[in-house]
């Protein structure tokens, strides 16, 4: 009998000629939480899938996987599957996708039970209700009849966890269980996983890209980069004394918001933007695909000259709608939106042109905000065209602005499909900067990027602020990003402003409960022994 619940030796995962995981080894003792951390593409999800026997088609793995001493790779496919389904519970990244949309949730939980328990339907239902109770699903009996799309993200993930625990496994593998969820829900789900681990004395493998989560929740970690293990050991040990560059980059990514933005001048003069008593109905697509209808209710904010504003809230809070109202991309139902004192609805043509030159917008998803058929050089030059610049001037300015965002000029002729996420987002920022605006409205500028790439893009935004005095209106759900880049902050919840003030005030002395909740949910608070690289 091995001392370890799980042992992985020299795991290789390949898809045809491509290597997805190379030579990964780790060991997990029962009762511990082991984190596997890395960027997207580092091989962490594939490692988890290989252990659980859930690799996609066309992907194969070699290497020993010992569960309680038995080598799964030496068993027949049927025997391996039987052992795995008995002993391993898997928690998936996107809870609604992991549930069959056609079948009520209760029956899916029933399906997850052991065959002996399933045999008697009444007993099975009883067991299912027990599990739902354990994972904290209120009104469980009603919920049995629900379809997955009728549940919120957090609730759906609890159901997925219930399904993972249904057969009383010894090992729980959670593959990025909170990435698709809102910040406050993330903390709750991670709390649940820790509780369940404690009460059942499970071994847990937690996959994540967030070093903050790793810091808070794991006992040991394995750091993956470029498909291989770069560092391993007890969590605090690795975080306090990282020996590898990649590890340091990941730590930096998680501690983005450990500093505040340098103090700006006091507010003076006409505010750049003023929103007074605005209401608007909107539809929001939540992070896991659900569509919800909500409304901005009597919202008022000011964007002062020279000061950057952060608009913070979770999905469905209305922050994107608010940002779009500023630029006239949407019309409010009531209330007024003023740009430099004038109503945005009734701007004259010259005033519109002036606004275009003064304020620009960066969309959240770079893949859909840049025309896929055009080279990024053409896309970046588009505002210049719109303002009537000639060809030579356009070429010069495009090269200039690409340099400002640290985008190599050789990439000018590439199409979006040929660039990485970080490069694309920088191209989108370059396009926004083409006419040298004073204010940049950025909607979740780094949300769709990898952790380490986020740091790079934020560095670009900081440098632009220092060199050109650029101010931002930053919309984000991630408080770490906002802390670094903004001076003033507005917290939105369900379409209403719940708190406003300077960033420093709000972070150090939050007044509203919701703000406190958001702040508490930030993974990985600053730690005395962890120096941020």
């Amino acid at each position, binding site marked *: 009998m091995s001392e370890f619940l799980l042992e992985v030796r020299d795991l290789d995962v390949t898809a045809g000629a491509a290597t997805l995981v190379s030579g990964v080894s780790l060991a997990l003792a029962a009762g511990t939480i082991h984190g596997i951390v890395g960027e997207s593409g580092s091989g962490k999800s594939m490692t988890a899938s290989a252990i*659980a*026997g*859930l690799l*996609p*088609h066309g992907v194969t793995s070699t290497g020993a996987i010992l569960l309680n001493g038995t080598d799964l790779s030496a068993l027949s496919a049927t025997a391996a599957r*039987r052992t*795995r*389904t*008995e002993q*391993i*519970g*898997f928690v*998936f*990244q*996107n809870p609604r*996708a*992991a*549930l*069959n*949309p*056609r*079948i*009520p949730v*209760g*029956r899916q939980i*029933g*399906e*997850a039970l*052991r*065959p002996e328990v399933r045999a008697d*339907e*009444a007993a*099975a*239902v*009883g067991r*299912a*209700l*027990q599990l739902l*109770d354990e994972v904290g699903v209120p009104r*469980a009996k009603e919920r*049995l*009849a629900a*379809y997955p*799309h009728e549940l919120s993200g957090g609730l759906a993930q609890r159901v*997925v966890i219930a*399904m993972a625990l249904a*057969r009383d496994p010894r090992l729980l593998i959670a593959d990025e269980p909170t990435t698709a969820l809102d910040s406050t829900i993330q903390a709750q789900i991670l709390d649940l996983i820790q509780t369940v681990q404690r009460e059942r004395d499970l071994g847990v493998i937690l996959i994540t890209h967030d070093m903050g989560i790793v810091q808070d929740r794991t006992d040991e970690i394995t750091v993956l980069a470029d498909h291989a293990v770069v560092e391993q050991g007890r969590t605090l040990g690795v975080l306090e004394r990282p020996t590898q560059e990649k590890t340091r980059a990941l730590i930096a990514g998680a501690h983005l918001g450990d500093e505040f933005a340098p103090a700006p001048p006091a507010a003076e003069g006409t505010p750049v933007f003023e929103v007074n008593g605005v209401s608007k109905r909107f539809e929001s697509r939540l992070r896991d695909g659900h569509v919800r209808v909500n409304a901005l209710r009597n919202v008022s904010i000011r964007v002062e000259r020279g000061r950057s504003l952060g608009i913070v809230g979770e999905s469905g809070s209305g922050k994107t709608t608010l940002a779009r109202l500023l630029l006239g991309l949407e019309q409010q139902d009531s209330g007024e939106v003023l740009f430099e004192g004038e109503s945005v609805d009734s701007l004259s043509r010259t005033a519109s042109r002036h606004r275009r030159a003064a304020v620009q917008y960066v969309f959240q998803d770079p893949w859909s905000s840049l025309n896929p058929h055009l080279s990024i050089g053409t896309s970046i030059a588009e505002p210049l065209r719109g303002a009537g610049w000639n060809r030579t001037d356009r070429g010069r300015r495009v090269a200039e602005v690409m340099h400002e965002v640290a985008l190599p000029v050789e990439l000018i002729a590439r199409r979006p499909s040929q660039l990485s996420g970080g490069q694309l987002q920088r191209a989108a920022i370059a396009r926004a900067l083409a006419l040298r605006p004073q204010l940049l409205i950025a909607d979740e500028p780094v949300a769709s990027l990898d952790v380490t790439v986020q740091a790079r893009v934020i560095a670009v935004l900081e440098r632009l602020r220092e060199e050109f005095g650029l101010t931002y209106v930053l919309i984000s759900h991630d408080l770490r990003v906002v802390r670094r880049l903004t001076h003033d902050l507005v917290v939105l919840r369900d379409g209403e402003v719940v708190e406003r003030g300077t960033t420093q005030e709000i972070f150090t002395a939050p007044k509203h409960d919701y703000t406190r909740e958001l702040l508490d949910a930030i993974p990985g608070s600053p730690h005395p022994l962890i120096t941020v690289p």
Partner: protein
Amino acid sequence: MIDMSSLVAQSAPLRFPTRRLRFRASSVLRSVLSAIIALWGVLTLVFFAILLTGNPATLLASPSPTKAQPTALTAQFGFDQSLGEQYVRFLGNIVTGNYPDSFRLSANPIDQLLAALPYTLALAAASLLIAVVLGLAVGYGAVFAGNRALRSTPITILAAFQATPVFVIGLLLILLFSVRLGWLPTGGARTPQSIILPAVALSLVMAPRIAQVFRASLLQLVDAEHVRAATAKQISLRTVRLRHVAANSLVPVVSVIGLELGGLLGGSVLTESLFNWPGIGAATIAAIDSKDYPVIIAAVVVIAAIFIIVNALVDLFTVRIDPRAELNL
């Protein structure tokens, strides 16, 4: 913790609830409304088509009319009245089944067509059934069969039939099963076996598309997250394939059936012609040959009506099998 004893004490044994999807009144209403508008559109089209020939009364009267017939028709349909008047009269007459008499039988064409309708419906139903069974089986096999040859051969054979017009398929079937083997009759509707060859021929019009769409849908779902989640449970892989992959792949198939129905109805006309199957299609062709315009018009209206109604049913059915579609309606 839940009190287990209170659960056990309940009189009815616990069951996992299954939701019976009810039709929302609003979605039923919408489908009916769409159908009515479509039907109205078809009738309007026919109306203008008749008018555009220049001589509607003579058209609708028999080939060698008596003096009285065109006049009677003009009175009935109002051909000498204003456009609006004619239109209203026309719609009224068509909807109440008040057609000018058929030339050949000197009777209301509707009776003739109603006699032929069961044959067409039987043929359509039989061929649809064969097409669905064949298409689903071949599509399923194309993804889940054991070896590569078993996966690719049936669906490729079926694809070859897509390039073959239905009457050529019919001829081949007749040649093989009637002429050479003598198992089945060459045509007509005298015996119950007579429906087999026409139904098979007609089914091969729709079956390839069903197989292709089902296969594509299955392949897309095979890597879906909920399928992975199902594989992680203690259920047989066959259950995973059937309950989680195949069952969820049916929605596009239903859509395709709706889209291809037009082809099926057109194909049924050709099939009835080839096999001398006494359905509406055959009646229409006979009418075209003898320039029996009242029958042609009546037949077109009937066929269009069938098409529209079945399409509306398909729409409603899609809602039943896809809970999320409820949200969009």
